[in-house]
C-alpha cells in the first residue's frame, strides 16, 4: 500500500507539469483562433469543425499518432525531435484542449449584445480597443468555463501519456492493470481525480470571481494554481550529474517490470540514479531506445526479427540473436549486450483436459478444429507479423478472436470464454493453470530469446555495460517463470515487481 503511494508525488509533479503545459499551449493556439473565428463565420466553421474532429479521435489514438508523425518530422529535419515522452504528449493534449476553449470563446463573442458592439463602434473605438475594452472583459467568464472543461479533460487524458513514455499518474494505472495490483490502479485514479477536482474548483473560483467582478478572488485562485505548478516544477528542474541519470524502459507486463527492476538495482549499485519508464508498447520501446529516450531495456529477439527487421524465415535461435545484434548496431547504434538465458516465445496454449479430449498436441492438430474454438490474445498479437506467419503455416480459422490485457487473457481461458490463447512461454500461469502448450512443427514462430539492449548514448559507457553484463546468460526459464508468477497471480501471495526481482537476484546468485 505505502509502496504504491510512495510513487505518487513524483508522478503527480510530472502529471501537473504536462497538463499545465498542454493547457497553456492549447490556450495560446485557441485564443487567436477564437478571435478570428468570431469575426468570420466561415473560419469558425473550419476551426470548430477541426477541433470537433480531433475530439472524436480517442485520446489514446491521438497520442499514438504523434509518435510516427514526429518520427517522420524528425527524419525530415535531420533528427533531433524527440518522438516519445513529453513532446508528443504535450501536442496531443494541447490539441485535445482546443475544442472547449474555442467553442466557449466563439459562442461568448458572437453572443455579446449587438447594442454594446454598436456603442463601442459609435464612440470611436478601434477594433483593437473594442477587443480589449469591451469584448474581452465580457467574454472572459464564458471563456473561463471552457478553460475549466479543458483542464479537467486534459488532466484525465494525461494519464494516457504513459503509453508514449511520458511519466505521469497513468504509470500507476497501467502498471497496476498489467500486474493486477489494484492498489496501484487506485493510487493513480485517486491522485488524478483529486488533481482534476482541485484544479476545477480553483478555476471555478476564478470564473465566479470574473463574473461578479471580484478581482481579489480571481487573483487568489490563479495564484494558488501558479503555486501548484511551481511546486511541481521544483523536483524536475535539471540537477547536476545529469549523465549519472539513467532511464530503464519496460513493456507492459509483469516479466518486463521484474527485469527492469533487476537492471535498475544493478545500475544503482554502480552509482547511477535510476528512473523507470514502464508500460511502453512493443513498437514504441525500441524507438525510444534508439533515440536515447531510455537507456536500457529487455526485448525478445523474435520480436525485433519479425517486426523491426521484417524477416519471415525462422533460422535457429542463435542465428536470430546474432542477426538482431548486427542489425541494431548497424542501423541504430543500439548495442545488444547479450541474451539473458531464457526464451519468452509466443506459445499457443489450451486447457489441458480440453486438449486431451480433442486430441490436439500441435498447431497442425488445432487447425482443422479451430472453427469451433475461440481465440484470446494479448493486445498486440493479432496485429503482429508472427500471427500472420502462423496463419500462413497453419490454416487456422477461429470462431472468434478477442484481444485482452495479458492478465485477462488468462482469465478468459480459465473461465472457458476462450479455448486457445497466445500465451508466453516464460509465463508462470501456464503450469499453474494446467495449460497444454501446442507444438509448432512447421517452425512458423521464431525464437524469442530475452536480450539486453542498450541505447547509442550508453553503448560505449564501459561502467554501464559492465554493471549489466553479469545478467547475461544468468536467468534460467524456470526461475523466471516462478518470479513471473509471484507478480502475475492475484491472490494474497501476490508480490510487487521489486520484491520478485530481489527474489530472482538471490535465486540466480546475482546478489547474496
Amino acid at each position: 500500500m505505502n509502496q504504491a503511494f510512495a510513487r505518487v508525488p513524483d508522478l503527480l509533479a510530472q502529471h501537473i507539469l504536462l497538463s499545465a503545459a498542454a493547457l497553456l499551449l492549447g490556450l495560446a493556439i485557441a485564443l487567436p483562433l477564437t478571435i478570428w473565428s468570431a469575426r468570420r463565420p466561415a473560419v469558425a466553421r473550419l476551426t470548430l469543425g477541426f477541433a470537433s474532429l480531433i475530439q472524436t479521435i480517442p485520446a489514446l489514438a491521438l497520442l499514438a499518432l504523434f509518435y510516427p508523425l514526429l518520427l517522420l518530422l524528425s527524419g525530415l529535419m535531420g533528427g533531433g525531435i524527440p518522438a516519445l515522452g513529453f513532446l508528443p504528449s504535450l501536442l496531443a493534449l494541447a490539441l485535445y484542449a482546443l475544442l472547449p476553449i474555442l467553442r466557449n470563446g466563439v459562442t461568448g463573442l458572437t453572443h455579446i449584445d449587438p447594442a454594446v458592439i454598436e456603442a463601442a463602434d459609435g464612440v470611436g473605438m478601434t477594433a483593437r480597443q473594442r477587443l480589449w475594452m469591451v469584448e474581452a472583459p465580457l467574454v472572459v467568464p464564458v471563456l473561463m468555463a471552457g478553460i475549466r472543461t479543458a483542464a479537467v479533460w486534459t488532466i484525465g487524458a494525461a494519464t494516457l501519456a504513459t503509453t508514449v513514455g511520458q511519466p505521469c499518474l497513468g504509470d500507476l494505472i497501467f502498471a497496476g492493470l498489467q500486474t493486477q495490483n489494484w492498489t496501484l490502479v487506485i493510487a493513480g485514479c485517486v491522485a488524478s481525480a483529486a488533481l482534476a477536482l482541485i484544479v476545477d474548483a480553483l478555476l471555478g473560483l476564478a470564473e465566479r470571481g470574473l463574473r461578479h467582478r471580484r478581482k481579489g478572488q480571481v487573483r487568489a485562485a490563479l495564484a494558488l494554481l501558479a503555486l501548484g505548478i511551481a511546486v511541481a516544477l521544483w523536483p524536475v528542474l535539471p540537477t547536476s550529474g545529469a549523465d549519472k541519470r539513467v532511464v530503464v524502459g519496460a513493456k507492459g507486463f509483469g516479466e518486463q517490470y521484474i527485469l527492469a527492476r533487476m537492471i535498475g538495482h544493478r545500475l544503482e549499485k554502480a552509482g547511477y540514479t535510476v528512473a523507470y519508464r514502464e508500460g511502453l508498447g512493443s513498437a514504441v520501446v525500441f524507438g525510444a531506445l534508439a533515440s536515447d529516450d531510455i537507456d536500457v531495456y529487455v526485448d525478445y529477439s523474435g520480436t525485433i526479427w519479425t517486426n523491426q527487421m521484417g524477416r519471415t524465415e525462422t533460422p535457429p535461435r542463435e542465428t536470430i540473436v546474432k542477426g538482431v545484434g548486427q542489425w541494431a548496431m548497424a542501423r541504430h547504434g543500439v548495442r545488444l549486450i547479450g541474451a539473458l538465458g531464457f526464451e519468452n516465445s509466443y506459445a499457443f496454449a489450451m486447457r489441458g483436459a480440453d486438449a486431451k479430449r480433442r486430441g490436439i498436441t500441435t498447431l497442425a492438430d488445432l487447425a482443422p478444429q479451430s472453427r469451433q474454438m475461440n481465440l484470446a490474445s494479448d493486445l498486440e498479437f493479432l496485429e503482429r507479423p508472427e500471427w500472420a506467419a502462423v496463419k500462413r503455416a497453419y490454416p487456422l480459422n477461429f470462431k472468434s478472436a478477442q484481444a485482452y490485457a495479458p492478465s485477462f487473457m488468462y482469465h478468459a481461458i480459465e473461465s472457458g470464454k476462450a479455448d486457445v490463447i497466445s500465451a508466453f512461454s516464460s509465463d508462470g500461469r501456464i503450469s499453474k493453470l494446467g495449460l497444454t502448450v501446442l507444438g509448432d512443427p512447421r517452425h512458423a514462430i521464431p525464437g524469442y530469446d530475452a536480450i539486453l539492449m542498450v541505447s547509442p548514448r550508453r553503448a560505449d559507457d564501459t561502467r554501464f555495460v559492465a554493471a549489466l553484463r553479469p545478467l547475461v546468460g544468468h536467468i534460467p526459464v524456470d526461475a523466471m517463470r516462478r518470479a513471473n508468477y509471484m507478480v502475475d497471480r492475484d491472490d494474497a501471495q501476490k508480490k510487487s515487481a521489486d520484491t520478485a526481482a530481489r527474489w530472482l537476484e538471490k535465486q540466480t546468485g546475482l546478489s547474496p
Partner: protein
Amino acid sequence: MPAQSHPRGPSVAFDGVGKRYAGDVRAVDGVTLTIAGGEFVALVGASGSGKSTLLKMVNRLHKPGEGRVSIDGEPVDSVPVHLLRRRIGYVFQNIGLFPHMPVGENVALPLRLRGERYDEARVAELLDLVELPRALAARMPDALSGGQRQRVGVARALAAEPKLILMDEPFGALDPLTRDTLGRAVRKLHDRLGLTTIMVTHDMAEALLLADRILVMAAGEIVADASPHDMLTGKGGAVADTLVAVPREQAHLLSRLERGE
C-alpha cells in the same frame, strides 16, 4: 473640422446619397440636402423608410453606395473612421451601455479613448448636465432604470464635447413621461451647447415639439422638408399632411375634452 472652432455645431451635407440592399431594395435614394450648423433636425418616417440608414451614414456606421456625406464641407471618409466618430456624439434606442463598467466609466469612456485619465469632477459635471444624481457614477448600468440609462447614454455622447449629435430613436423604448422630460432636456442641451442635432424618430408629435426642421422620408426619399409650423399649416406636402394629421387630431380632441365639450 475641429469642433472648438465652431461657436455653433457644424453643417452636414448629403450630396446625391443612395444605398441599395440585396434584391434591389433602395434603402436611401438620391438624397441631397444640407443641414445648417446649429439646427435641430428631426428625421421622420415609417419603419423601413431609410431614415436610420441615412443618419448612420454620417458617422459611417453605414456606407453610402453612391454620393457623399460631408461635415462642414469635409467628406466623412477623409479621416480614419474611429477619429471621425470620436468627434460625433451618438445616442441610440438600445443605448449600449458597457455592462462591465460602472456608470462613471461609461460616461468617461470617450475621454479615455482620447488618452485622458478618469476625472471624477468631469463625470460629475456630465451627470449634472443630464440631471442625474452624482452618486450614480459608482453604480453598474444594470442597477439603473431605462430612463436613467438613456440619460447616461446622452452624457456619454456629450463627454468629448462634440458639436454634432446623432440620435437614432433615442427615446423609443421609454415610457411617455420619461420620454417627454428627456426630450426637453436634450433640446435644452442643444441650445445651451450650441449643437447641431439630427434625431431620427417615428413619432411626429415628438418631432414637431422638439425640432427646428422636419425631414420626412418615405421609400428612401425625402418627401417633405419644412419647419414644424409649416408642417402644421399644410405646407409640407401630402405625405407630411397625413403624418401630421394624427397628432393634430389628438391635440384637438384633448383640448375639447379639457374644455368639457
